[in-house]
């Protein structure tokens, strides 16, 4: 699997401020993911959307936990949350 950061213009870490909403601490996960992608990806936008939301072999982590443990798309994102996309490695 190509390293996930290659889809994000080679940059490993992105700091993102979410747009303010009526209820500040409650963002719908899916919106946030799309927002992150829009914010962080300068090129290959479609490819990256597929990569993160649809492509098999990528784990989404929220604060060092598998997002499956956090309710996946239902998780309400909090301030200072750390979201990481990991691509599985297969080499040996």
């Amino acid at each position, binding site marked *: *699997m*190509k*390293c996930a950061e290659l889809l994000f213009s080679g940059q490993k870490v992105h700091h993102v401020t979410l747009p303010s909403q009526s209820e500040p601490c409650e963002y719908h996960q899916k919106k946030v993911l799309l927002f992150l992608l829009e914010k962080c990806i300068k090129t*290959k936008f479609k490819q990256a959307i597929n990569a993160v939301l649809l*492509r098999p072999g990528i784990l989404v982590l929220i604060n060092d936990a*598998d997002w499956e443990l956090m309710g996946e798309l239902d998780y309400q994102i909090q301030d200072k949350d750390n979201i990481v996309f990991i691509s599985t*490695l*297969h*080499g040996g």
Partner: protein
Amino acid sequence: MDQEVCSLKALLKDKEEEISALKNKLAQLEQGHASVLKLHDKVTPIRPLTVKTALSNEDIMRYSRQLLLPELGVKGQLNLAKTSVLIVGCGGLGCPLAQYLAAAGIGRLGLLDYDEVELSNLHRQVLHGEENQGQAKALSAAGSVKRLNSTVECIPYHLQLTPENALQLIQQYDIVADCSDNVPSRYLVNDACVLSGKPLVSASALRLEGQLTVYNYQGGPCYRCLYPVPPPPETVTNCSDGGVLGVVPGVMGCFQALEVLKLASGLSSSCSPQLLMFDAQNLRFRSIRLRPKQADCAVCGDNPSVTRLVDYEAFCGSAATDKCRKLNLLSKGQRISVQEYKSIVDTSVPHLLLDVRPLVEVDICHLPISLNIPLSGLEERRSEDIRLLQERISQLKQQMAGDGQPAVYVICKLGNDSQKAVQVLEKMSGSEVESIAVKDICGGLMAWAMNVDPTFPQY
């Protein structure tokens, strides 16, 4: 002159093969004398391990430093001696893993690899030496392990793990370590472990990153729970394409050894399922809490649909090897051989040679007349790359004095990326750049080195 060099090179290659075959035979004979190291080319039943009830004086001396650990102690050491471990893949991960398990006094090691030792393996596959080139990796690894600890029973398997032989083999071992290098093997090993109820200690490494997880252990998830669907083959990078720093699989193989030793000795492994990630660039470890076993998992779930091993190459859409895939994207008319390109160079036909490899590979070696624009630059229409291309094409056109379309030949390492580049360039031709005649050079620079210029480096 060139022909003479080529024929000498071919002769030398024949002789080298002969030498390595002889070395192989000699090594087998020598090792056959020292102990019983027979290279297995198929799976056969093995006798159960003899159970040690007490440590000998020699054992006590050899293992004294770890016997002093209350967490291990004599009981743990005896547990190690009665455990058998199957190592799938004797490469960058399998070598340090086998080494530490043998040093620690594991009872039996099954060492499986279908490949032979190559020069490009030695920077990371540290059980093999220069003299082992051409030898079966399983045998080379077994020889090194035996030199380290002759009391460990080693069974080298020179074969490919397949849906037909995997269950029979894995059933004979207590713990399985996945040190393979490709996606189909990872699913195959996982399913075989689930079906035969064996814990799977799995690691992987690429470039400057490594990952480690223990699957199918104490009700935890299996590989498929995490990755129910294999990744699209074109998104998978292997070590021969993406590169790997030798110490990275070294570190991960050592972690695998640690987890196997904990499982084998009775020291419980880290309780909740986790994924350990190693970022060598920033020297950082990250430990990820993983989902539990999934009720809807295709192989370990409540109603499994996979109840016997299937065709994993078809399931994953790729071959069970880390060798590069050969793409076939173009028609015959769009490609020329390296020999044909050689005659174009020799007869000084005006043309542009475009090398589409990444810069890091161009730095290793390139043909002097080539222009380097990486495939990604073409695909993304990077403005400085396109400008450079336009410039070079108009120069060529002037040189040709308006005589038909300028000829562009595209080359890369093996002839896969160059085909993609030809497709991109054909779309650009006549609009983004002047109208050009583009052709792919079949087999790339490695074919050039093999068939035209034996002094050109291979990597």
